[in-house]
C-alpha cells in the first residue's frame, strides 16, 4: 500500500470512527491492524499477546516469565486454513476481575487521556486479535488472571458483540489460589498459516529476547519444538511513566478529546493542568499571543460554530516558539547495558557496544534513539550489516527497506571503519517515543523524520568509531602475534645450531655440556621482552605465554 493510499485510509478510518462501532470498523478493516492474511494474522496474534505480557511485567518492575505455545487444533482443508490455539502466559500484575471483560472485550477501553510509552498503543492490538479469532473460528477468548493481592484466580470466556462493541461473557468463574501465582494467560483460537509464519515468529521471539535479556521466554511450536531463552540478567529498564502531552505534539482531534475530558474551568487552568511544562506565565503569554481570553471556558472550543477558534488554538499550540522543549524523563529506553548483554548472548559476539542517546524531540514528541553493534562471533558475514530494528521495544520485522534506519545504515561506508566485506556485523536501532513516527498503519517501518534520521546516524557512527578502534587494535595485535610466531618458531633451530657451535673443537665428541635448553630459555625471554601487546578491552596478554606455546608445538623433522 502506498503512503498516500495509507493516509487516505486513515482519514476514512477517522470518519468512520463517528458512524460505526470501532469494533465493527476493525472487523471490516483487518489489514489495518496487521491481520491481512492467515500468515500475518498468526504472527500478529503472537506479537500482540507477547507485547501485552511484557507490558504487564517489565513496565511494573516484575521480571518477566513469558510462555508462548501454539497448537494445531484443526488441520487445513482445501478451502480453509488450519486452526491454531495460541496461548500466552505471563507472570505480570494481572487484571482485576471486574476489568477483565472490558479490557479484553471492548475496543478502545480507556479511562484517562494521558500519553505513555507502551508497546501496544491503547491495547488496541490484542482486541483486534480477539476479533480476528472470533471471526475466523467463532471461538471465545479464554482469559485466566490473578493479581498479586488476590486470593483467587478468575477466568472468563468471552466474545465481543461487534455492533454494540460490548463484551459478551460466555462462561466465568473463580478458583481459590493455592500458590502465589499472579499474571494472565490468554487462549485464542484462530485460522492461520503457521508454516509460512514460522520463521518470522521465531525471529520475532528471538529479537524480543535480545532486548529483554531480563525475561525468561519459552516458546513451544506446533511441532513441539522448544525455544528457550533463559534470563541472563536481573537488571531491568526503568519502566515508562505517564506524562501530559506537549503542546507541539497536539493535533485538532486530540485537542477536542482533551477539551471534552478536562475538568478545568478556564483556558489558563486548562493550559497549566493538561499540558506538560507550562507554567502560568507561559500560559498567559501564549494565550495573549493567539488572542484568547485566559478566563474563557475551554468547553467553548467544542461548541457549535467555534471551529475557527478551535483551529486558532490548535495551530497556536503546535507553532508557539516559547514552550519549553518536551520532557523525556518518562520515556523508557532499554539502556546500553541490556542491549549489550542481549547482543552478546544472541550472537556470542566477539565485540558489542551500545549507546543510549540524549532525548530529542520532533513535532513536540520526545524520542530517544539507542543503537548497538555486535561484531564477529557467530554472526554470519554478509555483504551488508544485519539490521535489527525496534520501536518502543517491539521488534520490527517487515518493510525493512522502507525504514529510516535502513537508509542510515546502508549509506554508511563501513570500509572507513576498517570493516571489510563480507562483514560479521549486526546493527541494532531502537527508537523509544510517546509517538513513534510509523510510516504506515502496519507499524513496521519508521518515517524519515529529519531529527530521527540524524540521531540514528550519530548513534550508529559513534559506535562504529569505537569498533574501528577495536578492529585496528586487534589488527595490530594480530600482526604482533604473527610476529611472535614468525620469530619464535625458529628458536629451537637456532638454539640447536648455537649449541653445536659452542662446543669447542677439542671437546667435540666428549661429554661436552649441551646448552641447548639454556639458549632456548634466554631467547624466549629476549623475544618476549621485545614485544608489547596492546591492551584490548583492558586485557593484555603476556607475550611470553605465546612464545612458549609456539615453541612447545615446534617439531624439527630431519
Amino acid at each position, binding site marked *: 500500500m502506498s503512503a498516500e493510499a495509507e493516509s487516505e485510509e486513515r482519514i476514512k478510518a477517522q470518519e468512520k470512527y463517528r458512524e460505526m462501532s470501532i469494533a465493527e470498523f476493525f472487523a471490516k478493516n483487518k489489514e489495518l491492524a496487521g491481520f491481512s492474511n492467515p500468515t500475518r494474522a498468526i504472527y500478529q496474534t503472537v506479537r500482540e499477546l507477547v507485547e501485552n505480557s511484557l507490558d504487564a511485567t517489565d513496565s511494573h518492575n516484575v521480571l518477566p516469565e513469558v510462555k508462548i505455545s501454539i497448537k494445531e487444533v484443526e488441520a487445513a482443508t482445501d478451502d480453509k486454513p488450519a486452526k491454531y490455539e495460541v496461548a500466552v502466559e505471563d507472570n505480570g500484575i494481572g487484571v482485576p476481575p471486574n476489568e477483565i471483560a472490558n479490557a479484553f472485550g471492548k475496543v478502545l477501553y480507556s479511562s484517562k487521556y494521558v500519553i505513555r510509552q507502551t508497546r501496544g498503543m491503547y491495547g488496541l492490538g490484542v482486541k483486534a486479535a480477539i476479533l480476528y479469532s472470533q471471526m475466523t473460528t467463532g471461538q471465545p477468548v479464554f482469559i485466566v488472571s490473578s493479581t498479586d493481592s488476590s486470593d483467587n484466580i478468575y477466568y472468563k470466556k468471552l466474545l465481543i458483540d461487534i455492533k454494540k462493541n460490548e463484551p459478551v461473557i460466555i462462561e466465568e468463574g473463580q478458583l481459590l489460589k493455592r500458590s502465589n501465582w499472579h499474571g494472565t494467560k490468554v487462549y485464542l483460537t484462530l485460522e492461520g498459516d503457521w508454516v509460512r509464519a514460522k520463521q518470522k515468529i521465531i525471529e520475532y521471539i528471538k529479537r524480543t529476547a535480545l532486548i529483554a535479556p531480563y525475561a525468561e521466554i519459552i516458546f513451544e511450536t506446533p511441532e513441539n519444538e522448544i525455544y528457550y531463552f533463559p534470563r541472563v540478567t536481573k537488571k531491568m529498564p526503568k519502566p515508562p511513566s505517564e506524562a501530559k502531552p506537549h503542546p507541539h505534539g497536539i493535533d485538532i482531534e486530540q485537542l477536542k478529546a482533551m477539551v471534552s475530558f478536562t475538568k478545568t474551568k478556564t483556558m489558563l487552568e486548562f493550559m497549566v493542568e493538561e499540558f506538560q511544562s507550562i507554567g502560568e506565565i507561559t500560559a498567559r503569554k501564549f494565550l495573549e499571543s493567539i488572542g484568547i481570553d485566559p478566563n474563557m471556558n475551554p468547553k467553548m472550543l467544542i461548541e457549535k460554530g467555534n471551529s475557527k477558534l478551535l483551529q486558532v488554538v490548535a495551530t497556536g499550540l503546535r507553532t508557539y516558539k516559547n514552550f519549553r522543549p518536551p520532557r523525556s524523563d518518562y520515556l523508557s529506553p532499554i539502556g546500553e547495558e541490556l542491549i549489550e548483554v542481549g547482543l552478546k548472548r544472541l550472537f556470542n559476539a566477539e565485540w558489542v557496544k551500545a549507546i543510549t542517546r540524549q532525548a530529542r524531540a520532533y513535532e513536540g514528541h520526545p524520542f530517544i534513539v539507542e543503537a548497538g553493534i555486535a561484531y564477529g562471533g557467530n554472526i554470519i558475514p554478509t555483504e551488508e550489516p544485519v539490521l535489527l530494528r525496534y520501536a518502543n521495544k517491539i521488534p520490527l520485522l517487515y518493510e525493512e527497506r522502507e525504514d529510516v534506519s535502513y537508509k542510515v545504515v546502508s549509506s554508511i561506508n563501513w570500509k572507513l571503519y576498517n570493516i571489510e566485506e563480507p562483514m560479521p556485523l549486526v546493527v541494532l536501532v531502537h527508537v523509544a517515543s510517546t509517538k513513534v513516527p510509523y510510516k504506515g498503519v502496519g507499524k513496521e517501518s519508521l518515517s524519515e523524520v529529519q531529527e530521527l534520521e540524524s540521531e540514528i546516524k550519530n548513534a550508529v557512527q559513534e559506535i562504529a568509531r569505537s569498533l574501528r578502534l577495536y578492529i585496528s587494535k586487534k589488527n595490530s595485535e*594480530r600482526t604482533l*602475534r*604473527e*610476529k611472535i*610466531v*614468525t*620469530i619464535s*618458531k*625458529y628458536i629451537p*633451530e*637456532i638454539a*640447536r*645450531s*648455537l649449541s*653445536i*657451535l*659452542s*662446543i*669447542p*673443537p677439542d671437546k*667435540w665428541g666428549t661429554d661436552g655440556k649441551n*646448552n641447548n635448553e639454556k*639458549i632456548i630459555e*634466554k*631467547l624466549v*625471554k*629476549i*623475544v618476549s*621482552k*621485545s614485544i608489547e601487546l596492546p591492551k584490548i578491552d583492558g586485557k593484555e596478554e603476556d607475550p611470553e605465554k605465546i612464545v612458549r*606455546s*609456539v615453541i612447545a*608445538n*615446534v*617439531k*624439527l*623433522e*630431519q
Partner: protein
Amino acid sequence: MSHIDKIDIAARKKVAEIFHKKFSELSESIEKGSPPKLEIPMRTLANTVFDPSKGILKLGIRKIERNFLNMNETKKFMQTLLMASIIYQALVENEYPTIRDLYYRGKHTILFKDLNGKIKEENTWEEQSESDASIRDVEVMTGLLREDMLILSKEKGKVVGNMRIRSGNDIIDLSKLGHGAYAIESTPDLIEFLDYDAELVLVVEKDAVFQQLHRAGFWQKYKALLVTGAGQPDRATRRFVRRLHDELKLPVYILTDSDPYGWYIYSVFKVGSIQLSYESERLATPKAKFLGVSMSDIFGYGTKKAYLNDEERRNFIIKAKDVDIKRAKELMKYSWFHSKLWKREIDMFMDKKAKLEIEAMASKGLKFLAFQYIPEKIQTQDWIE
C-alpha cells in the same frame, strides 16, 4: 684415521677454532640478554670497491646487521646459523661436504602451529640458492673462503707443466699426465708446490685450445705452466693462478676470444668478480696480462701489422651482436678498463663492431698459434694490462 692427511687436519683445526670463537660471541651476547644479531659485510655492488693500490675488487666497509628480532631477517638469521653449524660439524668430524651436501644436510622441515592452531610446515630452505647464499654469508662473516672450510665444488680448471705438487698424501708430476691434465682441486690452498721448471703461466679461456696447445707441446717448448678455467673460471682455478704468481713469481698471461666476454674473463682473473668481490683479496691476480686476441691483432694499428690478411678477416670475423655492444659499454664504466690501451681496444671494437674467436687463430694452423702468435706477442710485450 691414517688416511686423513696432515695438511687437512691442521687446516680444519684452525678454521674450526675461528668458527667456534666467532659464534661463541653470539652465544655470550644472548646470555646477556641482548637482541641477537649478526654483522655481515654487505655483498652488493654498492659495497664493492676497486682498490687501485692492490688492483683488485674488494668488499667495502659497509656491513648489514641481521637481526633475529626483525621479522624480515629472522629466517635468514636462522639459515645463517644453521649453515654455520653444519659446516662446523663437518669440519670437526673430518668430512668434505659439497655445497649440494650442505643444502641437503641443512634442509629439514620445521612444524609449528599458526595463530589459528593449524599445523604448518616450513622448510629451513627450499632451493639450493638459499643455502648457497647462507654459505656466502658465513664466508664473509668469518673472513674464510669455502675452500678454507674444506667445502668441495665441481672441479673445472686444469693445469699441465713442468712442476711437481703434493696433493693430500700424493706427489703429482704435472708433466706426466699424458694427454690429460691435473684437475685443480676444490681446496687449492692445500696444494703444496714442491719443485718446478717454468718461466711463465699461460691461462687460456677455452678448454679446446688448452688441449691443442698441450698436444702441440707448447708448455715444454716455452717452459710454461698451461692453465684453463674452461670458460668462466671457478674459484679454485683463480686461487691456483694467484698462488702461482705470488709464490713462484711467474708472470701470468691470459688468452681469450677477442670480444667483451673474453675481456670480462680476463677481468675476473685480474680484479675479481662483482658477485664474489669478498674473495678477491685472495683470488685475484692484479698483475695478470691480457695477451690477446686483441683488436690490433686482427686489424693492425699504426706500425703494427695485423696477424690476419683480408681474406682471413672476411672468413673469421663475426659481426658483434647487440649484447656484445651492451657488455662493452658496461665494461667501459669500470675504472680498470680506463687505461690508454684498453680504451683503444674498446674503441676499435665499437668502431668495427667485430669479434673473433681464438679458434680462428688456430685454424690458421696450430703451429701458427703455438709457435708464432703467442711467443711473438710475449716477446714483443704486445699485451694489455
